[in-house]
C-alpha cells in the first residue's frame, strides 16, 4: 500500500537520546514518562525481575511484556495481573510490549500462551517484587514483614498507619533480584483488579481507523511484491518472458528456481505486472481425478480402517493409540489440499497440526 504514514523518528535514536522509559505501541512512539522515567539501562534477562517491571520515581510502574497484543486483550490483561499482584492501581501502570530492545524474550505470541505463559511470568515477577518491597519497608519501618501489606502503590502496616511509597523504596533503581518462579501469590479471593471487565485500550483506535497496522506503515523506498503462483501443484517453471512486463516502469522479475515474483515501487503497477507477466510452467498430472475422489482417498495409504466403533464407542471413544500418529501420509495430505476449496485448506492444515483431522479421518470411515 502506498500509505503515507511514515515513522517520524527512529526508536533507537530516541533511546540513545536519553528518553529512558519508552512505550512503543503500534500507534507510534511516545515517551511513557518524562520525569518518572528512571531506568537507565534495560535488563532483558527473563530470569530477572527487572526484565519485567520497573518502579519509577514518579510512583508509576512500567511493565515490559515480551508478548504482543494482537487483539486478544493483553494490553489490559497483563497490567491487571501485574497491578493486582504488585498492589498498585492499574492507572499507575505504564505498558511496553514486544520491543526487542526493551522487553524480555517471552517466546512467541501464539497458541493462547499470552496469559497462561506470559501473564504467569509477569505475575511471578510482580509477586517477587512485592515481597522485596515489603522486606525493604520492613527494615525502614522496623516492623516484621508479615505485619505489612502492599497496596495502592505503597507498603503499609496491615493494622493501619503510615506506609512508604514504592517509589521511595526503589524508585528509579533496579531490583537486582532473581525472579522467583514459585513466589507467594495473592489469594484470588482477595482480588480487586483481576476479574474486572476493564476496557481494552486498543478498541477505540480500531473503531475510528486511527490504529496503525503494519500494512499502514511504510518506509522510504519501500518496494511492493506479488508472487506468481503456478497453475498446478508440482508444476515447475520452464521459462519467463521478462519482456511481457516491459511497459510497467520500475517493475522487476524475481526468479529463484521455481519461485516467481515481481517487485516494484508502485503497488498497483506491480500488481498489474504480476497479471501480465507471461510464464511457462510444466504440466503435472499428480492430482487425483475429481470423480474418483472418494476411491482415491480410500486407496491412499495411511488412512486407516480403524474407527471409534471398532476401537471404542461414541460415548466412550477409545484413546487413540500412539501408533496411529502418522495417519495422513504425505500423499493423502497433498490430495486433501488439492481437492478442498481454498478456504478449507487452512482448516486442514490447522487441524492436521492439532490432530483433529487425524481423528476425523479415522472416525468417519
Amino acid at each position, binding site marked *: *500500500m*502506498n*500509505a*503515507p*504514514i511514515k515513522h517520524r523518528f527512529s526508536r533507537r535514536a530516541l533511546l540513545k537520546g536519553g528518553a529512558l522509559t519508552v512505550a512503543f505501541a503500534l500507534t507510534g512512539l511516545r515517551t511513557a514518562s518524562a520525569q518518572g522515567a528512571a531506568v537507565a539501562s534495560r535488563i532483558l534477562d527473563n530470569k530477572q525481575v527487572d526484565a519485567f517491571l520497573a518502579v519509577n520515581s514518579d510512583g508509576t510502574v512500567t511493565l515490559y511484556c515480551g508478548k504482543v497484543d*494482537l*487483539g*486478544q486483550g493483553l494490553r489490559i490483561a497483563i497490567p491487571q495481573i501485574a497491578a493486582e499482584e504488585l498492589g498498585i492501581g492499574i492507572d499507575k501502570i505504564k505498558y511496553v510490549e514486544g520491543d526487542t530492545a526493551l522487553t524480555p524474550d517471552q517466546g512467541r505470541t501464539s497458541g493462547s500462551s499470552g496469559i497462561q505463559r506470559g501473564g504467569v511470568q509477569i505475575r511471578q515477577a510482580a509477586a517477587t517484587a512485592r515481597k522485596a518491597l515489603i522486606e525493604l519497608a520492613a527494615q525502614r519501618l522496623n516492623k516484621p514483614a508479615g505485619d505489612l501489606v502492599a497496596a495502592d502503590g505503597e507498603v503499609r502496616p496491615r493494622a493501619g498507619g503510615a506506609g512508604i511509597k514504592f517509589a521511595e523504596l526503589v524508585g528509579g533503581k533496579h531490583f537486582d533480584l532473581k525472579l522467583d518462579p514459585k513466589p507467594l501469590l495473592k489469594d484470588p479471593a482477595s482480588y480487586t483488579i483481576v476479574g474486572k471487565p476493564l*476496557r*481494552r485500550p*486498543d*478498541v*477505540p*483506535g*480500531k*473503531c*475510528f*481507523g*486511527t*490504529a*496503525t*497496522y503494519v*500494512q*499502514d506503515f511504510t518506509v522510504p523506498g519501500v518496494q511492493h511484491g506479488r508472487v506468481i503462483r503456478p497453475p498446478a501443484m508440482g508444476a515447475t517453471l520452464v521459462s519467463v518472458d521478462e519482456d511481457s512486463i516491459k511497459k510497467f516502469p520500475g517493475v522487476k522479475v524475481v526468479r529463484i528456481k521455481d519461485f516467481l515474483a515481481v517487485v516494484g515501487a508502485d*503497488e*498497483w*503497477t506491480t500488481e*498489474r505486472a504480476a497479471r501480465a507477466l507471461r510464464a511457462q510452467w510444466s504440466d503435472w498430472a499428480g492430482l487425483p481425478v475429481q470423480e474418483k475422489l472418494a476411491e482415491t482417498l480410500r486407496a491412499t495409504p495411511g488412512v486407516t480402517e480403524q474407527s471409534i466403533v471398532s476401537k471404542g464407542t461414541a460415548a466412550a471413544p477409545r484413546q487413540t493409540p500412539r501408533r496411529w500418529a502418522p495417519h495422513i501420509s504425505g500423499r493423502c495430505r497433498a490430495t486433501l489440499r488439492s481437492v478442498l476449496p481454498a478456504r478449507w485448506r487452512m482448516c486442514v492444515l490447522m487441524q492436521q497440526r492439532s490432530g483433529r483431522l487425524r481423528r476425523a479421518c479415522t472416525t468417519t470411515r
Partner: protein
Amino acid sequence: MAKYKLRVNGKARTVDASDADKPLLYVLRGLGLTATKDGCGLGQCGACTVIINGSAAPSCQVTIANAQGKSVTTLEGLGSAARPHPIQAAFIEEQVPQCGYCTSGIIMSAAALLAKTPKPSEDEVRAALDGNLCRCGIHVRVVRAVMAAAGQRGLP
C-alpha cells in the same frame, strides 16, 4: 496521468492515476486514509468496504474511473472520538473488535444499513453483514452492537 474528481469524506478531491482500473482502495490508502483495509483483493472478504453514494461497496472492486464524480465515505469520515457515529460508539461500548482488521469494513456496512433501515431486525443485520468476514469470530458482538446502535435490544 489522467485526473479523476470525486468527493471523499465530504471533501472534493482530484487524484492522478495512470490507470483507469486502479482500485479505489489503493487510491484511498494512497491519500492516507488507511482505515480501509486491503484484505483479499477479490471482493470476497469485506475488509475494504466503504460507502459510495450511500451504498456499501468493496473498494478493491471499484475502479477510480467508476468512482469518478461519486461521494465516498471511509471510516475516517464516519465519526471521530469527539463525535462518534452511533455504530462506532456501540462497537466501543460492546468492545467488539479483536484484531480489528475487518472492523472498518463491518462498521461501514452496518452504517450503510442503518442509513437505509434505521430499525433492522437481527436477520437484516446478519444479511447486510454477510459479505464481511471475520477470522477472530466477533460476529455475535457485532450483531449486538448494531442492534444497540439502532436503539433496539440486541442479543441477551
